[in-house]
């Protein structure tokens, strides 16, 4: 199925969860901010997210800025 992650269309297997995707991408869990279909998801609720066709996910972090 296709979901949009950080503006790019991505093919993921059915049953992919947010946590499994983050692990697959080897992203550190610390310091990430997740927006799922326009809603902010706090870390305690990340494990509840299972991707479905057409989802829009933003995975954000802090970078240097002025």
């Amino acid at each position, binding site marked *: 199925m296709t979901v949009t*992650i*950080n*503006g*790019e269309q991505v093919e993921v297997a059915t049953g992919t969860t947010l946590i499994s995707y983050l692990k697959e*991408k*080897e*992203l*550190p869990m*610390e*310091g*990430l*901010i997740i*927006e799922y279909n326009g809603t*902010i998801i*706090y870390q305690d609720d990340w494990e509840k997210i299972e991707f479905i066709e057409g989802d829009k996910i*933003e*995975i*954000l*972090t*802090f*970078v*240097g*800025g*002025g």
Partner: protein
Amino acid sequence: MDKLIIGDLEIRNRLFIGSGKFANEAIIKDIMAETGVEVVTVALRRVDLKNSQNNVLNHIPKETILMPNTSGARTAEEAVRIARLARASGCGNWIKIEVISDNKYLLPDNNETIKATEILSAEGFVVLPYMHPDLYAAKALEKAGAAAIMPLGAPIGTNRGLKTKEIIRILIEECTLPIIVDAGIGKPSEALEAMEMGAAAVLVNTAIATAGDPLLMAKAFSQAVQAGRQAFLAQPGQTVDYARASSPLTGFLQD
């Protein structure tokens, strides 16, 4: 004690720094340790899913007051979205509002900034709006619930100094909120001048991050900010047009 209070926090060090453009972000920790800087800005961006990601927070001590900015926002609505996301990180409720749609000079859109300030302050954010210096806009930001006003000295990243000095002077005089000069300050002497005029603080990024020796430059800025603040508190003597002798005008030897 001379303390700056923003939101409900007391700040001793009136030099705020930005964390962008450092060739080596690890130096930020050294700067903070050696200067006592307490407030640091960061930006929120999409994680790069193709390359390994460096999180700037790895280089910023935990006790730091983080001031995420809304850079990338072109409208109030976008700034509000970024601010809410930033707060979801659990790194506090300070937000530097930056709403810019002019890509050449990166000048802030005061109208959109006022709208975003109103929404975010009502949501409990400590809102520090980056603005184009203008008295009416500053008053509107005060009314909208801002915690401080951050007028630019010159366009972002130009190191051109306090080009907007006269208006900043008026904002300092007419606004009740702290005025923090943000953007454009290129040299410690310019930071000192802003503080001597009565600015509550200055926010410096490019001038430190792109200096030949960022740590040494940060120390120079820190000292300049302190000197400027002390000069302001000491109340400079008046300026006059004609000479006034500093030595007594009586008791000359030839009398």
